[in-house]
């Protein structure tokens, strides 16, 4: 896919209007996973707008987003960067054999208190 096609695909999945962004950086200022991310919420907005999807697809950042929606809530422009992260991650894991998490990984993540909610959520986020 060309950059433009990738961009359109992300915009279709996420239904985000990236042109609304005024580049204030409040999303990135709000992000609790900042330190673990290579690309930060405001960069997702700008890179999607520029069609630079490939680096995002290859980045660990898409698995570090907590989906806590802080960036969405605080964006003064209603841009919703979290939806872009989700869209890029889905584009990555929807590929055949690209599941991030496999059933055999589970036992080593468990301890006696691990709630089922964690596993269900993680599988939903990381696998298809």
């Amino acid at each position: 896919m060309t950059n433009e096609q990738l961009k359109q695909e992300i915009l279709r999945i996420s239904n985000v209007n990236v042109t609304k962004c005024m580049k204030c950086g409040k999303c990135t200022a709000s992000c609790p996973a900042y330190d673990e991310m290579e690309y930060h919420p405001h960069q997702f907005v700008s890179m999607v707008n520029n069609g630079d999807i490939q680096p995002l697809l290859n980045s660990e950042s898409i698995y570090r987003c907590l989906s806590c929606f802080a960036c969405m809530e605080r964006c003064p422009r209603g841009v919703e960067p979290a939806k872009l992260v989700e869209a890029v991650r889905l584009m990555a894991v929807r590929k055949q054999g690209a599941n991030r998490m496999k059933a055999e990984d589970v036992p080593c993540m468990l301890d006696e208190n691990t709630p089922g909610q964690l596993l269900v959520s993680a599988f939903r986020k990381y696998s298809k």
Partner: protein
Amino acid sequence: MQRIGVFVCWCGSNIAGTVDVHAVAEALKNESGVVFSTDYQYMCSQAGQDIIKNAIAEHKLTGIVVCSCSPRMHEATFRKTAAAAGLNPYMVEIANIREQCSWVHKDMLSGTEKAVILGRAAIAKVHLNAPLTPGQSPVAKRALVIGGGIAGIQTALDIADAGFPVDIVETKPTIGGKMAQLDKTFPTLDCAACILTPKMVDAAQNELIKIYSYSEVSQVSGYVGNFDVTIKRRARYVKEDLCTGCGLCTEKCPQKKVPNEFNLGMDNRRAIYIPFAQAVPKIATIDPDYCTMLKTGKCGICSKVCTAGAIDYTAKDEYITEKYGAIVVATGYNPISMEKFDEFAYSQSKDVITSLEFERLTNAAGPTAGKLLRPSDGEHPHKIVFVQCVGSRCDSCAEKGKEYCSKICCMYTAKHAMLTRDKYPDTEVYVFYIDVRTPGKAFDEFYRRAVEEYGVHYVKGMVGKVVPQGKKLMVQASDLIDGKQLHIDADLVVLAAAIEPDKSARPLATMLTASMDTNDFFTEAHPKLRPVESPTAGVFLSGACQGPKDIPETVSQASAAAAKVIGLLCKDHLTGNPCVASANEMLCSGCSQCANVCPYGAITYSEKEFRMPNRTTLMRRVASVNPAVCQGCGACTVACPSGAMDLNGFKNNQIMAEVDAICRN
């Protein structure tokens, strides 16, 4: 049947070059009602006008058509010519055969053909013209200024300077507005009080200016030149004519725990109070929400200590009615509530403050006597974070904040940062910005000085979260240039809150039938060319009620509004435009459709008695148009379902006749 004269102008070769003017004059001679038709080199010249005048006399013309340049050019000229010859000026129609014919078409044949058609349309219209006389209305030579901030004061002073009486209505106990609360003013850093209070005193001492403080406008009727305004004078429980402003009562009042709104609640005042030392009028006011005497009937200390006998616990609201020729709205602005932006922890920590609160904290007359101290513990802050654009520039779908730029924040934040660094060089100052907007004389230079000379840290980025922890405010922010997330342990966080129109503006706009935009700012009659007039005739706009403005801009707009008011009050009578709407009462069903679309509130309804067969009568509700208020747009004529509403000069049958004439091949 009209007797119509047609005058075709050559305009040198401007028209004659592409249009066969003789042929046009000849062709139009055959039109019904035309008794005279001629052409001439320059109709607008003295000789040309004489031809028209002579023809009117000689042929007893009742209407004339001039085929010439655009009516926007010479309609007024030819109307005067007609009037000079004793013909009603509104019996003149212009066929635009220059701008809209000879200049845009190349060949003589089609140009001439079109000129004839345009002439025919004008003739068809003149057939239906009726003489019109502009209405005249007297002008009450007194102005009302609503709002006593710097905008209202400046407008009032300028109007009074021209010799007209002005009344200022201010809801607070004193005039002065927001500017009285400010410390210094950008970009010259003169003290706000030093330049404002002399103006307040000027207003108080000017014999032509009457200040109704602690009052509000409660009713407006009438129209340009003739407004009847009812002003509610709220009971202040202190007789204005007796109080000397000595302030003894405000020291003796036992009710000490009233949040002081002048200091934005950062300290307390008494239940009887004078807002600040330089208040105008300097008269005490009793706050009925806190006064023990008014609430329980037990106390009365202020009355005992008042040597002037000015205290009156039995006072009631009073209403006065006054006639005004012009009204100026100067209701100003307020910072928005920070309630919905609690990611900045405004409700959680006293040390998160708004910029206006910062002004009070640095003001020598403020709660800390001008020392910059943390509201929570009175300690000197060593690290201050300023956050710009809080609630400004938000998208409408973000459901909080305002869509517009509040315009003044970049500059006052630069001022705050600079003054802090100047007075307390040991304090680190961060300013988080999205863009720094400094379009104004000496503004960008000012901002650069804050950065270059005073070492203020300007960070391109935003604050995402403020976490009060212990005595510190942990500020989590982005630095977009360095690509970092910053964590600053600040002592004070200052929010540049967006500004919004005062809440009183919306009901006032309804009373004045003045229009507002979606943000409740008053709309101007034209955004570029009539910026200080409301579309409602006789209502003028001054200051931030029209849009966010700094002091220099507010003062220039205030003076501009005053100039417009003076221009109006100078006239003894207002001559209206006779091309206004009028309702045919026989057809009107009183449905209110027309009033709903009228942008000027020119249409009113009344019950009228109509004669019916067999000597009976019938009461019916019918519309009537106030010709002094109607501006002649014609919106009502189309809205009217019964065809009762029509527009003089552009009547339905006139436009229809033009259509017919153009389509008659």
